[in-house]
C-alpha cells in the first residue's frame, strides 16, 4: 500500500481541507444515517411477523402466514359477533384499525418473502390477504353503525318515525299511478301497521283460487299467513316475525331489517336485507342481493294441516336448499361474508300456531 501511489483521499483524511460548513453537514449526515438505522431496528421489533426473511423456507413461511391469518380472522369474527353480544367489545373502531394494520403487515411479510416463494404460493397468499381486507370492510360496515340501513335514516330527517311511515306508504302507492296515468288496483295484503299480530288463512279450494299477497311497511309486527298461496311480496319490514305456509310460486323480499322469516316456497329472492334470520324450505337455490348479516336455517312452521299444504304445493320434501344460498354480490367460489348458516344453538324451536281459524 505504502509503495503505491497515495490512495484516494478518504473523507476523514480530507477534513482539514474542507471548510467548517461542509464538516458540519457531513457530521449531520452521519447522525441522520445512524438515527435512521436505529429507528429501523426499533420499528422492526414490535411487529411479530417482521422477522428478517432469513429462513427462506416455504414451509415455515406458510405456517407463519397461516397462524397470523387465523388470528386476524378470529379477531374479525369476534368483532362481527359483538353487536349481538350482551357485553360488546368496548372500542370496535380502534380494534378494527389495528386489525387493518395487521393485515397490512401480513401483506408486507408476503412481499418481503416473495423472492424465494413459488409463484403459486404468492398468488394464494395475496388472494387470502385481499379476502381478509374485504371481510374487514364488511365487518366495519356492520359494526360501525353509520352505514347500517337506509330506511331508518329517512324518517329521522323528517321527524319521529311513526307519523312519517304512513306518508311514505302513500308516496309509494301513488308511484304506479304516475306511470301512464294508470290506476293500479289495491291487492290483498297487510300494509302500514305497527305492533300488531296479523293473521290470514288461505282456504284454497283448488290452486286457481289462490292469489298473491303483499306484506309491506310493517314495524314490530307478527304476520301469520297460513294455507297455500301463489306468490308473496314482502317489502320494507322492520323487527317483524313472518310465518308463512307454502307458497306455490315465488317469494320476493326487499328492504327488511331485523326480522325473522319462516317460509316455504319454490323460489326465494332476498334483496337489501340487513340482519335477518330465514328459516326456509325451498325447491331451488335461494338468492340474496345487496344484503348482509343474513342467516339461514331449515323451515320450522307447524300448524294444523301444514303437512297437507306442503304436499299440495310440492314442498313436502326437504331439499336442503335452505343452505345453498347464492349471493349475487359475491360471485366467487369462497363463502360470501354476507350470509351464514344459523348455528343450531341459536335457532328458534319450531313455531307452532294453534287454531289458525281464530
Amino acid at each position, binding site marked *: 500500500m505504502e509503495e503505491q501511489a497515495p490512495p484516494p483521499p478518504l473523507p476523514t483524511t480530507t477534513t482539514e481541507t474542507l471548510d467548517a460548513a461542509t464538516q458540519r453537514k457531513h457530521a449531520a449526515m452521519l447522525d441522520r444515517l445512524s438515527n435512521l438505522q436505529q429507528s429501523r431496528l426499533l420499528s422492526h421489533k414490535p411487529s411479530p411477523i417482521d422477522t428478517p426473511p432469513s429462513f427462506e423456507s416455504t414451509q415455515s413461511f406458510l405456517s407463519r402466514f397461516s397462524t397470523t391469518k387465523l388470528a386476524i380472522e378470529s379477531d374479525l369474527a369476534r368483532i362481527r359477533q359483538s353487536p349481538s353480544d350482551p357485553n360488546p367489545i368496548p372500542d370496535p373502531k380502534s380494534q378494527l384499525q389495528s386489525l387493518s394494520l395487521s393485515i397490512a403487515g401480513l401483506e408486507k411479510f408476503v412481499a418481503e418473502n416473495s423472492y424465494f416463494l413459488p409463484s403459486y404460493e404468492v398468488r394464494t397468499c395475496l388472494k387470502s390477504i385481499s379476502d381478509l381486507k374485504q371481510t374487514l370492510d364488511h365487518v366495519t360496515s356492520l359494526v360501525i353503525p353509520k352505514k347500517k340501513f337506509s330506511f331508518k335514516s329517512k324518517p329521522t330527517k323528517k321527524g319521529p318515525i311513526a307519523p312519517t311511515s304512513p306518508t311514505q306508504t302513500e308516496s*309509494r302507492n301513488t*308511484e*304506479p299511478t*304516475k*306511470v*301512464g*296515468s*294508470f290506476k*293500479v*288496483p289495491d*291487492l*290483498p295484503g297487510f300494509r302500514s301497521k305497527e305492533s300488531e299480530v296479523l293473521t290470514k288463512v288461505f282456504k284454497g279450494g283448488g290452486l*286457481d*283460487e*289462490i*292469489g*298473491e299477497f*303483499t306484506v*309491506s311497511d310493517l314495524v314490530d309486527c307478527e304476520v301469520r299467513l297460513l294455507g297455500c298461496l*301463489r*306468490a308473496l*311480496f314482502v*317489502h320494507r319490514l322492520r323487527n317483524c316475525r313472518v310465518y308463512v305456509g307454502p307458497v306455490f*310460486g*315465488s317469494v*320476493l323480499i326487499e328492504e327488511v331489517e331485523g326480522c325473522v322469516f319462516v317460509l316455504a316456497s*319454490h*323460489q326465494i*329472492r332476498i*334483496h337489501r336485507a340487513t340482519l335477518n334470520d330465514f328459516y326456509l324450505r325451498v*325447491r*331451488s*337455490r335461494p*338468492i340474496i*342481493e*345487496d344484503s348482509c348479516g343474513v342467516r339461514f336455517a331449515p323451515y320450522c312452521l307447524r300448524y294444523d294441516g301444514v303437512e297437507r299444504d306442503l304436499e299440495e304445493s*310440492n314442498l313436502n320434501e326437504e331439499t336442503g336448499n335452505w343452505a345453498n344460498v*347464492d349471493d*349475487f*354480490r359475491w*360471485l366467487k367460489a369462497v363463502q360470501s361474508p354476507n350470509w351464514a348458516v344459523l348455528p343450531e344453538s341459536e335457532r328458534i324451536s319450531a313455531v307452532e300456531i294453534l287454531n289458525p281459524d281464530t
Partner: protein
Amino acid sequence: MGLLSIIRKIKRKEKEMRILMVGLDNSGKTTIVLKINGEDTSVISPTLGFNIKTMAYNKYTLNIWDVGGQRTIRSYWRNYFEQTDGLVWVVDSSDLRRLDDCKFELDNLLKEERLSGASLLILANKQDIQGALSPDEITKVLNLEAMDKTRHWRIVGCSAYTGDGLLEGFDWRPLDERAVTTMIAL
C-alpha cells in the same frame, strides 16, 4: 372446403335466429323457456348468468338467450345485444310495485342502437295469478303506445305456469321480411 359447402353453410346460418330474452328478476324468463321446450319447471333457481336454449321451430333454428334479471347483473345485458333478431321482454304482471322499475329498464333497453332492428315481443306473464294485470293494463302502464313507430311490437298475456299464451306469443308474424323470419319463430 368447396364453394358449395361454404354457400350451404351461409344458408344454414340465415335460418338461425338469435332471440334475447330479458326482463326483471322473478318475471319468469327461465320458466317460459323451459316450458316451451317441454322441460320440468318445478325446480328453477334464479338465473346467475344466462342460459342458451337451441330449439327447432318449423325450418328455423332458434337460439334463445335467457339472461338473468337480478339488478346486479342487468348491466351485463348489453353484452348480449349484438346480432339480436328478436327481443322478448318478460313482465311479471302480478308485481305491481315494481312496474316502475320494469318500465325504466325497458325504456333503457329500447334506446339501445344495437337493438333498433329487433322486433319486440312483450310477454305479460303470470296471468294465472289472481290480481295480475291484463295485457291491456300492462300496455298502459308501460306506455307502449308511445313507442317509436318503426318498431314492430306486440304484447301477449301468458302463464309460464300453465303454458297458456306461450304459443300464441311465439306465433306472431309482423310484416317486414327480417321480422317475419324472426317472428315465425316467435
